[in-house]
């Protein structure tokens, strides 16, 4: 069963096999990059005679930015605050943020997963990483991997809750983009 609410693929001509296979490829790539849970609906339209490849997707609700209290436990200690890191993945981002906020001389790392700050203000609310920006980067990467390789002319329109990606061998003309958007709207309403 698909983890997405809607996942439709339409391919022109006698290419049922291609449609079936592209479904598998898209699932494999989205799963590899860990994006599958963030996409609600996905519509893919491929016209191999033109040839053009278009994807339209609706994203699930936004991802909140990662704060210091998400990556570790903040404790009040003598002369400042101590952060016990639980998620090392964002360690470098965390240190960068703390250095920028408090200055290097007030941030100390006595052991691998402990950071001590000499300050009166708790660091809990500081933003460590903007996960949404990372997600959008990964999504663009996934779309480039999914699209057939020869389709070098690409356009990617991203908004807060949706994305539209089109790739073709020939130059992308406004009429073609409009036509693809129309096709995808038809798929949505079908």
């Amino acid at each position, binding site marked *: 069963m698909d983890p997405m609410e809607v996942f439709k693929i339409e391919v022109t*001509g*006698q*290419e049922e096999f291609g449609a079936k*296979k592209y479904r598998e490829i898209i699932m494999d790539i989205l799963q590899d990059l860990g994006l599958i849970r963030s996409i609600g609906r996905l519509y893919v339209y491929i016209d*191999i*005679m033109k*040839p053009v490849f278009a994807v339209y997707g609706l994203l699930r609700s936004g991802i909140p930015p990662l704060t210091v209290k998400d990556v570790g436990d903040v404790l009040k200690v003598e002369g400042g605050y101590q952060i016990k890191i639980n998620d090392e993945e964002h360690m470098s981002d965390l240190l960068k943020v703390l250095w920028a906020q408090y200055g290097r001389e007030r941030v100390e790392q006595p052991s691998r997963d402990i950071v001590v700050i000499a300050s009166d203000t708790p660091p809990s609310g500081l933003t460590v990483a903007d996960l949404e920006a990372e997600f959008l980067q990964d999504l663009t990467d996934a779309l480039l*991997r999914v699209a057939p390789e020869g389709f070098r002319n690409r356009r990617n329109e991203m908004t807060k809750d949706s994305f539209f990606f089109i790739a073709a*061998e*020939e130059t992308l003309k406004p009429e073609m983009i409009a036509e693809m958007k129309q096709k995808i709207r038809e798929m949505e309403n079908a």
Partner: protein
Amino acid sequence: MLEPVMFTGGVYKHDLVIELVEDLGGYVLQKNVTQSEVILLLLVPTEDMPALESLIKELRGELVRAPLAGTEVAVVTPTLAIHHLPHTACDIAEYLRRNGAKSNMMGLARGVGREIAQINEYESALINEHDAAVFIFGNFAECIRKKESLYRNISVPVVVTGGPKIPKEDLPYAFEYVPSIGRVAHRARKATEIGTLDSIIDAVGRALDRTRNEISKDPLTTSPPRVMDAVREQVPEVEYSYSPLPIALNLNGLRVKLPYQGYRDAVKAVTFDEGVKLGEIATIKPSRMKEYILVRILPASETGFVF
């Protein structure tokens, strides 16, 4: 008749296998030592197989038939980008290797797309140095038909693979078409996927058999493994080549992995027991692969004798 086989076993006493094969008049094509294990590609006279089998049983090794041994097969993808590699291409190349072939992976510079795909003279000349080629295409029948232009001018048999089922008549320039292995984003692990790899090996085997048949109508002056042995003996520098396989065999000759400029004359001067020089029975030219030496043995119709 020489039987192509692959021996896998421990390093301990494996030189006994090599000695026996040489005593029987067979050839060691390739030797790969991986830590404590050794893999040997051998050509052994069919009538002496029981002798080898009993020795290998004693050494607790494994002996399997390697139908593609002594051949070089090109695995060609439209490019070397993430869309075509690694899964399908590596699976096919690895499978060819397990069956004894020397497989070379090639990505074309501009092989992508439906309308814009192209191949240049250098690429086709390089593919023509192999014994057969496998072209890996994608999932759309229309694109596979259109991309025929990529292999139309290749003179060695071309096995085309792709996703959908396409009747053979639609691809007149392909030796064979193997369906259900188009673009995939995972390694082959299901039984059906492995089965498809087997059918590619079968198709390549048939392609090589056709070439072997053609050669048998006008046999080569001498066999490539014999030339390999002589070159190995008389041009010892070849053993110092950095390539894992310093001499690669083809059905109609071999590739010596030494610089053409420096070693052309040494290879030409290789002499056989019968007093014939290699330069007299073969053309020796620069290979398209790096600066290597390509040896093409002349057929009996040109030299007038076979030994």
